[in-house]
């Protein structure tokens, strides 16, 4: 019955012409995914790449150097997967928040998730924690900041959405100040650069263990949001209207915040601060498939993954040294966003 319904509603979407757009986005992502394996300091010819990838599925006599396999599966695969995961998570969280706050200028760090994660990581680096320790600190810091924001906002007896945004901005500034504080007292030859580089964002030292670690929170949050996709539509009409249409807005808001925070904090914990993806990509997705979350969420996932993967490829290739990802996402994202604003139909009113 449920599957039948899903099938039918999928049919509804396809009738409106968004289905093929999703399929094109999917193939774009797959294309960039395969292409990304060939890119990098250690050259892998396309023919050899396809052979190595195919050998994972069918048995084949290896005609290539063992190093090629190591480069592809130990170095590039985790990094490629991490880029897709982080990009998809940030843009999905951004899309959900923009609807919930009825505001297209909202990004996933609106409630302080990034600032909190940054604080956690800075603290971890300051106390010379291991890589896993730093990541855990970042994740917990993100959850803590959003928890504080939420806890404060429900005690404010005014417009609940405004209360949430305001407390988010406050808590965000507080944690940003705390980061500065740690940077100020950190050892300037050792800890300070580490903290600064972490905050700029990078996927350079990603291992497959990192990918496994964030897989669960990101997929959990994303899946729950996807299941609630119809209700996200209704919530975007405004809190009061959503409640009158039969949604328990308080519970719904809490679930959306939990999902987005899990996804954002997990992403930031392995990648550092990466801005603009969560703000720009949902807009781009909305311009392509419209505001209906039934197609907007899949489009945001695919576009976000493809975009960050592409930017990370550039970060690897442009210069002889790695360029921090957070710098590139802004350098590419801002002009691109401005171009969209100036040249196309807005995705919102």
């Amino acid at each position, binding site marked *: 019955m449920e599957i039948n*319904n899903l099938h*039918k509603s999928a049919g509804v979407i396809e009738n409106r012409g968004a289905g093929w757009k999703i399929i094109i986005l999917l193939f774009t992502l797959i294309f960039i995914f395969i292409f990304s394996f060939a890119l990098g300091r250690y050259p892998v010819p396309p023919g050899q790449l396809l052979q190595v990838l195919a050998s994972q599925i069918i048995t084949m006599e290896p005609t290539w150097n063992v190093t090629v396999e190591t480069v592809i599966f130990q170095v590039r695969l985790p990094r490629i997967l991490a880029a897709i995961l982080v990009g998809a998570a940030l843009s999905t969280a951004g899309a959900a928040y923009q609807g919930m706050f009825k505001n297209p200028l909202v990004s996933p760090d609106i409630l302080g998730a990034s600032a909190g994660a940054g604080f956690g990581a800075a603290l971890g680096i300051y106390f010379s924690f291991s890589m896993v320790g730093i990541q855990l600190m970042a994740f917990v810091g993100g959850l803590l900041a959003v928890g504080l924001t939420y806890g404060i906002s429900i005690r404010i007896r005014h417009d609940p959405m405004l209360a949430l945004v305001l407390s988010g901005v406050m808590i965000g500034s507080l944690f940003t100040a705390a980061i500065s504080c740690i940077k100020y007292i950190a050892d300037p030859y050792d800890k300070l650069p580490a903290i600064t580089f972490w905050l700029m964002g990078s996927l350079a030292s990603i291992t497959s263990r990192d990918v496994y670690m964030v897989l669960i929170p990101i997929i959990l949050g994303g899946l729950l949001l996807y299941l609630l996709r119809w209700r996200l539509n209704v919530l*975007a*009409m405004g809190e009061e209207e959503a409640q009158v249409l*039969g*949604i328990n807005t308080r519970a719904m808001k809490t679930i959306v915040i939990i999902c987005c925070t899990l996804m954002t904090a997990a992403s930031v914990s392995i990648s550092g601060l990466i801005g603009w993806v969560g703000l720009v990509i949902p807009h781009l997705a909305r311009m392509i498939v419209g505001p209906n979350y039934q197609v907007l969420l899949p489009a945001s996932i695919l576009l976000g993954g493809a975009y960050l993967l592409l930017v990370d490829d550039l970060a690897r290739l442009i210069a002889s040294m790695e360029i921090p990802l957070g710098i590139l996402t802004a350098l590419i994202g801002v002009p691109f966003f401005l171009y969209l604003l100036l040249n196309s139909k807005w995705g919102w009113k």
Partner: protein
Amino acid sequence: MELAIRNLSCGYGKRRVVDSISLSINAGEVIGLLGANGCGKTTLIKTILGLLPFLGGEVLLEGKNIQYWTSAQIARVVGYIPQMHTPPFPFQVLDVVLMGRTAHIKPFASPSLKDVKIAEQALEMLDITYLRDRIYTEISGGERQLVLIARALTQEPKILIMDEPTASLDFGNQIKVLSHVKQLAGLNIAVLMSCHFPEHAFLYTNRVVLLNEGRILHSGTPDETITPERLKKLYGVDVDIITVKNRMNQELQVCVPSRSLAAEDKYYQSMERRNQYALA
């Protein structure tokens, strides 16, 4: 009896805006709620919809107290048509109408083809099938209001509540939207509508409730309830109620100000002219 309100008090926090009101609405009836800005119309409506907590009294739907109902339970019985508004995202009209089905579908599910059929029927009933694939933010205000009525109909409600559904609509769109209200009552739905023009109450309601400073001043049929004296008390202005006939020879009540500034202007102008002649 569909909706019964008994000694209901409502307001914000501890501040009582509406004080111990009782009224009942039956299926097929259109009730108009009249009163000045700030008299408690919107507060009353929000309380019935479950958006504000009860400060006292009860609201009974078919004899059942709705105070602790979930929003989904209320939405399956009560449809709401808000004042004209523009959402920030350009949803398709069909999607907006389908949102009315939310209370009938499971939390993790999306509307099915059956829901789409119900939405299309609602569009058809309001003669706006041509809007189905248009963008909600790009259609006119009157059309948007009709779409919201269609959305409320897909909730399959027993009661429809409208909060000044024609506020900020132009003259023609006001008449177009309101002419559908009687049609809704014909579907055996009880309609509670707050109006900002007494004339609308004459034209489109069976019964009016005059709300003054949070209390019911009077209620009954429009003809016997809306009088110049009560309008003076409600709105603080002198109004004459005049019966006129339209070109189809139907009798209508209109409310006009007792003092016409335009006529006075003309009088002064003629006086001025006479003075000028006298000087010449």
